[in-house]
Structure formats: structure tokens, C-alpha cells
């Protein structure tokens, strides 16, 4: 069984690693870059606004699971694991965006109120946030401060999450003759992480503590939106690639990776009533343009293994 599995894994993995390398140009040509901040006529720069505390993440090398989904010859594949060599530093907020911070945007009529049933407590992270709200808040903060605030990419999330980044597919088994093996192992992997997960109730930001790079509350009970769009790449028997990209669904990162429609603020469950949904959806921002661009970073990735 183990030997079979290893064989299966390598037979999938090697072609996929090659495929991944070959398809980076494809990803680049298919994905619409994030729109830049647009000026808003009624919101003015405000130098008195609190600028969130930042943590500077140094250039890092780390293993990273490509969030793109791959189907080869009608057979879904495990996405390739790549070795990311990120050569630039990254500025990320030390804490999640709080209710108090978010409310300032709502009061100005720029942001929609978060969708929650409980009364928000000032120093708790804002939750009940869909992608559009998160992106809007980044836009607002950029206008207020004159700096470029934005949502992290999935890769950047992994960069600052450090040891809190858990390969979303590391425990996934597969059997070429039985799709249920993958479904069951995925379910068990996520149930396990749920058992170890912190309680659902929210706490003041920072209380879960910092990761090894000094970033607070990473992968605890608040998941955060990334700017990375959903993509699926199909390769047919003849090697011809086609793909679907949808920025209507984005990668959400936390104790495990998931994909959600941009309009969801309170996920109620995984696919088809099974699975482990994010506990809460919130916001963490990074500062500065994607420098160098996300795509040149990707070019620094090389197939791992």
C-alpha cells in the first residue's frame, strides 16, 4: 500500500512539477492584475489616521503549494509543491484589522458594515467580511494615508505566515482507482486540524501571540482574504492547455487554504455539506506595491523535488 502510494505520488508529481514550470507563463497571461487604488472624490487624505503597526518580513525560501488546480487528461491532479525563493522583503500589518479601524471606514460611508450578529468589540478583529469589503477597506486606507495598502497574495500570505503555513495538500493520499481515497484523506486532515484549532470565540487582536516572524494571530480563528484568484488548468492527452480563471472566487488563507466566492462573508460549510469552513473571515493588509511584481516573484519559483 505504502509503496503503491509512493509510486502513485511520484508518477503524479513529476509530470506536474514540469507542468507547473511550463505553465507559469500561462498563469501570467491569464490573470488580471489587481486594480490599483482609485481616488474617491469625497474621501480626503488624513494624516491623523492611525497607521497600522508593520512587521517587515525578510526575503525567504519556503515550500509553497500552487493554489491553481490542475486536471490532466480528465484526471484531477495534486497541485505542484514549489520551492519559493522570494527575494524581496514584505511589509505586513502586525495585527488583523480591528472593529474600531474598520468602523472608521464605515462611518465615512466608504465601507459597508461587517455582517455579524454580535455587537463588535473595538479591539477584536473585524469579521463577517467578504472580499469586496476587504478590498474596499484597503482602498480606503490607501486614500487616507497616501500609502498603498492591499490584500496579500496567497504567496505573500505564506511568506509572512512562516511556520503557521501548513501545506494544504501534504496529507492528501490518492489512488488512481478510487477517488474516495483522496476525499476521505482530505476530510480527515481537515478534521484533525479542526480538533487542534483554537476556540471559535473572538479575542482582542494579538492575544493568540506572534509567529516566528512577529506577525500576530496567524492561522488562528480568523481567516483572511487574499487577492489570488481561482484558477483551473486543464491539459488534454495531446498536451494542449486550457484554463479557467475566476476572480469571482479568491483564495482564503488560515489554518487551511480554501476558496470562497467574493460575496461570502460568513461561510457555513465546506463543499456539499462536508468539510471544515473557516471560522471567521477578516482582513490583514500588506503595504507597498507587489515589488517586484508578483509575476517576477513567481519566475523565481522553481519546481521542487
Amino acid at each position: 500500500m505504502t509503496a503503491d502510494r509512493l509510486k502513485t505520488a511520484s508518477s503524479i508529481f513529476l509530470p506536474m512539477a514540469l507542468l507547473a514550470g511550463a505553465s507559469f507563463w500561462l498563469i501570467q497571461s491569464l490573470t488580471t492584475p489587481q486594480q490599483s487604488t482609485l481616488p474617491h472624490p469625497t474621501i480626503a487624505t488624513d494624516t491623523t489616521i492611525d497607521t497600522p503597526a508593520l512587521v517587515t518580513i525578510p526575503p525567504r525560501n519556503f515550500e509553497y503549494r500552487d493554489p491553481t488546480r490542475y486536471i490532466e487528461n480528465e484526471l484531477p491532479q495534486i497541485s505542484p509543491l514549489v520551492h519559493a525563493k522570494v527575494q524581496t522583503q514584505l511589509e505586513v500589518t502586525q495585527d488583523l484589522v480591528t472593529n474600531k479601524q474598520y468602523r472608521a471606514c464605515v462611518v465615512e460611508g466608504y465601507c459597508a458594515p461587517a455582517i455579524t450578529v454580535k455587537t463588535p468589540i473595538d479591539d477584536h478583529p473585524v469579521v463577517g467580511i467578504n472580499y469586496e469589503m476587504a478590498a474596499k477597506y484597503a482602498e480606503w486606507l490607501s486614500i487616507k494615508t497616501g500609502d498603498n495598502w492591499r490584500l496579500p497574495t496567497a504567496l505573500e500570505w505564506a511568506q509572512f505566515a512562516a511556520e503557521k503555513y501548513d501545506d494544504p495538500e501534504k496529507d492528501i493520499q490518492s489512488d488512481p482507482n478510487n477517488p474516495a481515497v483522496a476525499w476521505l484523506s482530505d476530510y480527515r486532515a481537515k478534521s484533525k486540524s479542526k480538533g487542534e484549532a483554537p476556540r471559535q470565540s473572538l479575542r482582542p487582536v494579538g492575544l493568540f501571540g506572534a509567529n516566528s516572524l512577529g506577525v500576530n494571530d496567524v492561522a488562528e480563528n480568523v481567516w483572511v482574504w487574499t487577492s489570488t484568484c481561482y484558477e483551473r488548468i486543464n491539459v488534454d492527452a495531446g498536451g494542449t492547455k486550457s484554463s479557467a480563471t475566476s476572480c469571482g472566487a479568491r483564495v482564503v488563507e488560515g489554518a487551511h487554504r480554501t476558496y470562497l466566492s467574493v460575496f461570502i462573508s460568513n461561510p457555513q460549510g465546506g463543499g456539499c455539506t462536508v468539510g471544515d469552513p473557516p471560522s471567521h473571515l477578516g482582513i490583514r493588509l500588506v503595504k507597498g506595491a507587489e515589488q517586484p511584481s508578483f509575476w517576477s516573484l513567481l519566475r523565481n519559483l522553481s519546481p521542487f523535488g
Partner: protein
Amino acid sequence: MVTRRQTIFGALGTAAALTAVANLTPQAMAADNVDEMPRKKVKLVPPPFVHEHEQVASGPPQVVEFEMTIQEKVWEVDDEGTTTHAMTYDGSVPGPMMVVHEGDYVELTLINPESNELLHNIDFHASTGALGGGALTEVAPGEQCVLRFKATRPGTFVYHCAPGGSMIPWHVVSGMSGTIMVLPREGLKDDKGNPLRYDRVYNIGENDFYIPRDENGEYKTYETVSESFSDQIETMRGLIPTHVVFNGKKGALTGENALTAKVGEKVLFVHSQANRDTRPHLIGGHGDYVWETGKFNNAPEKDLETWLIRGGSAGAAFYEFLQPGVYAYVNHNLIEAVELGATAHVLVEGDWDDDLMKQVKAPGPISK
């Protein structure tokens, strides 16, 4: 910012993730000799009608090919112009009925055109495995897929969209459900094993809609389907539908669209409700033979006045019309029938039978 016309997926939850890691092979998916079996392409027809089919299978099992295109569209649910963004299989609410025989293979091509906003899939209650096929059929706008399953259990079964999390009830109460009827190869039988043959079959899908209202009590409208999501979930959580209708709209099966039959005709009413219990009743008639749970390996109940269709199932009622007239086929929660819309009419032509009923004396002044 996300533009309005931007493609928006449904919840890409665990099922999709699971699909992505499955390493399937064609051998794993295929059963014995399916490739050599005879194939038949069936063109689906919108409800309340059902595509032509044999009641008794004349040949060996075959692969029956269907194709459905998912259409998201603005949909009127009543006669007052109230609209919602319906999600439909092939453009109708409910989706078209598929009819096959036990032992046949259903092969569905499911198309999600680029013009749609959401990700969809299909969960066949008649199928076995992969969350009813849901885990293998998630199609983004601009994609299509083909699912094959073996129809192993005879009966009427619901199919519906189930793309994960809150998307599941939202898609279902937006119209994304329908029925597949798997007939026994030798056709339907009564409780004693005698053949039952229908002259007509009607596909009745009952839907509960939850349309949000504004502060003045007016039904709200939304420019896009995704914009309606938050409000609609809120309304759905109240569990009180604003509309309970047959075939997608109050009045869809009344007036010019009323069902028709003749005295002496045997009609099979197939009634599905993918979300909520209902209790069909034919006012002035009966259910001669009723498979309340819809599963033909069980003997039908006889002479029913009202039957229960459990939410998430489809049942079948066989009735021979014995009198002409206008019949009302209702959900016998009469508030839902009359106030919320769950009424159909059946116009039956033929000769009156005085033996069954006669007006002995017409209403007039009290004489004693």
C-alpha cells in the same frame, strides 16, 4: 473592486478541493462494457411535460445521453411582477424530467455558459457516490463536464445543485432542482403486480422562494444574482417562504397553462420538492396508486386523499380521471395553496357520471 459583470463562483469549498486531488482513471470510472452498450440521445422538454419514453423497456439496458445548459436568469415568481434571480437547469424551474429504465446508464453533459456568474454542479439522488455526483460535476462559467451513473434503483428522484456551504440551499431555493424517473424495465405495477400504464405524465416541481423585502414591505430587486445573496440568506433563515409555487411561478399551471386530461385517461403526477415537505391533494379526485416516497420497488398505496412529499424527494401519484370538470391540484396546506401560490388546475373533458355524483337539488331557499 469586483465589477458587476465579473464571473463569480459559488462556494469553492471542500468538494472542489477534494475533486482536485482525486487521481481518477477512466478504468475506475467505467463499468463493464459501457462503451459497447447501445446509446440513445434524448432531447429534454420543459415541465410540466416529459420527453417521449417507453414505459416498458423494449431492449437491453443502454446509455441514455442528456444535455442540460445552466441558465441564470431574472425570473418572475408571481402575477405581481415580483422577480428573483433564478438559477435553472436548461432554463426552466424545475429542470426538465429525465426518464430512463433501471439498469440504464445516465450520461449527462452539464454546461455552464460563460454568461453565468456562478459555479454550479448536480447531485442526483438516484446515483451512488461522490455526493450524488456533486463532487465530480462542479463547473465554472465557461466550463462543461460529463457525468455517467448507473440507474440502479427504480423510482422518482430529485436532482439539485449543491455547490457547497450556503450555496446549497441558496441554489436550490433559486430553482435549481428537478426530477429523474427511473422506471422498472417492465414498467409500473400495482400492489398485486398487474401492469399500470399511464396515458400522460406531468412533471410538477414545487418551489419555495424567499424574496427579501425593503423597509416598506416591497419586494427588493437586485442587479445581479450575487448582490442578492446576503439578503436572501437572511430571509431563508427565517424559514418562511414568500412564495410556494408549482413550476416556478404562481399560475404556471393555471389558466392558459392549466394541465389537461380526458375522462378515462390515466395520469401520473410526479411531484418533487427539493427543500421542504409538501402534501399534494387533487381536489375532487384521488390518488389511485401512490408511491408517496416515489420508489417503485415498494407497493403503491391505494385510494389516497392527500400524500406527503418529503423535502428532498419526489413522489408519484397515478390517477384515472372519472369525471369531467376543473380539478385543483394543490399543496393542501391551503394557506400555501391559495395565498402563496401552490395551486395547479386540471381541465378534464368527458361525460359526467351521475352514479358517482348527482345534484339532487340545487341550492335554493330553505324549505322547511
